[in-house]
């Protein structure tokens, strides 16, 4: 059985097509990542799956329940963390948690085991108003609130956006722990490097799914040759590499430039001598494996 199944889901707002024929199958107990930039349609898909809006076309099922007809059933078994920081700022940490427990007819103590790992980090601040928490702590509180009724499936819409790298890392550690308790997780993020932390991912761009696979398979499907190129004058290096023929993509990645090219047309030695002819110094060309961002950009272009 799939925890989420969609068949040809489409949705438009006036003349903007937010989603076009989305077909997804999310397996039980996996962390499934929906990866894409802002405006790709991630939130729209989340809202359809959490029964908040109706699709124009197609059908979707969460834990076997139809999102349109059986919305009441779904609302009992999902935990949802919307994109915006959606907590009551004028209530304390503890009061927020108690409230969200109460609307699911449960109590914090009843499901304490489920949230223990996250909530224990927040407990020293339980009397603090939610509005006074830092970004990372707000995010943990929001997750605790979404988990407090022990849902069967968690929907997390961009939980890590705007959160610093340390809190992001901690957050993913927590998600893995939650997954181990058997809860399926459907999560979206604009940070490509987080895709590698999911069991399977779907790349989404302009309302369309580019690919669905495990991070490993996505990387092995990157057929171009990829090299990290460095030289002293990076600014000029980009311009010169872009002028080169048989080059698929030239993008800066941190301190080096990722160059993807067709090895049948040009080989690294030829690139090296080309760069030398352009008077570059300290050139290094190293063949590398693609990361998720390389893959996403390639799929975007296709």
């Amino acid at each position, binding site marked *: 059985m799939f925890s989420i199944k969609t068949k040809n889901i489409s949705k438009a707002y006036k003349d903007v097509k937010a989603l076009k024929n989305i077909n997804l199958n999310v397996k039980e107990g996996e962390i499934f990542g929906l990866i894409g*930039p802002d405006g790709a349609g991630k939130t729209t898909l989340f809202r359809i799956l959490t029964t908040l809006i109706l699709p124009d076309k197609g059908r979707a099922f969460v834990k076997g329940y139809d999102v349109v007809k059986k919305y009441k059933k779904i609302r009992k078994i999902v935990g949802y963390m919307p994109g915006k920081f959606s907590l009551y700022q004028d209530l304390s940490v503890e009061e927020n948690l108690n409230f969200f427990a109460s609307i699911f007819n449960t109590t914090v103590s009843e499901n304490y085991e489920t949230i223990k790992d996250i909530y224990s980090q927040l407990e020293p601040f339980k009397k603090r108003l939610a509005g006074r928490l830092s*970004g*990372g702590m707000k995010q943990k509180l929001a997750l605790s609130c979404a988990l407090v009724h022990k849902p069967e499936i968690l929907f997390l819409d961009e939980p890590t*956006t705007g959160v*610093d790298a340390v809190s992001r890392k901690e957050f993913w550690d927590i998600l893995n722990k939650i997954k181990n308790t058997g809860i399926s997780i459907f999560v979206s993020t604009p940070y*490509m490097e987080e895709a590698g932390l999911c069991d399977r991912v779907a790349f989404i761009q302009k309302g369309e799914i580019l690919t669905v696979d495990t991070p490993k398979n996505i990387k092995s499907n990157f057929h171009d040759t990829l090299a990290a190129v460095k030289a002293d004058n990076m*600014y000029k290096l980009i311009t010169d590499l872009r002028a080169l023929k048989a080059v698929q993509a030239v*993008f*800066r990645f941190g301190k080096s430039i990722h160059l993807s090219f067709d090895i049948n047309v040009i080989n690294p030695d030829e690139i090296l001598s080309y760069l030398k002819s352009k008077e570059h110094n300290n050139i290094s060309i190293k063949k590398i494996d693609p990361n998720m961002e390389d893959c*996403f950009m390639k799929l975007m272009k296709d």
Partner: protein
Amino acid sequence: MTRENILIKVNNLTKKFGRFTAVDNLSFEVEKGEIFGFLGANGAGKTTVIKILCGILSPSSGDVSVDGFDVYSQTEKIKKNIGYMSQNFSLYEDLSVYENFRFFGGIYGLPRKEIKKRTDYFLKTLGLQDKKDSVISSLPLGWKQKIAFSVAQIHNPKIIFLDEPTSGVDPVTRRQFWDMIYKTAHSGITVFVTTHYMDEAEYCDRISIMDAGKIKAIDTPENLKKLYKENSIEKIFIKLIR
């Protein structure tokens, strides 16, 4: 660093809100034409520092000057020489591209002719000439951010503050955006940027990492990696802030 090349000078800056110390005895300098990455944990005090540097918030104590102007007494002069762009506020969504340029150019007292000339120049660089009369809200996020960056430069400022300019932008546009940042820095404008993308930290000439009101580290990405014996800024960041 030669003295005349220093654009931002911060000495023992402290800012308190009531009993809470948001910025704690901070000192650093930023050079002309430099891309300075201002990193930090959420709530570390980054926004407070930026507000002080922009002249919209007064320090509790310490000396701060931007382009030689004092942040206590010469805020009006500072404001004329800076550009600011953030993810939250950048452009008027219900105005057209050109109307935004004209409005912000007008704020800085540029003549109509000059605004037109510069708008045309920016739109040509962006390849968006045919979008001149499009309403901002109809454009994709990536374009908006690029236009916002151009609008922030319309008055030819000495320094531009970018507060998480690439948050949520797709990877290709994100790099195009950084290409723009390079071009701007190349023309001599200082770029002061915050980001949560750690790979972007590597694009900066120098970075600082801030936590709990203090700067934990400040140097070029290469030097920091040598110093902390790590191969990425992300790892250094996590090491320092944890």
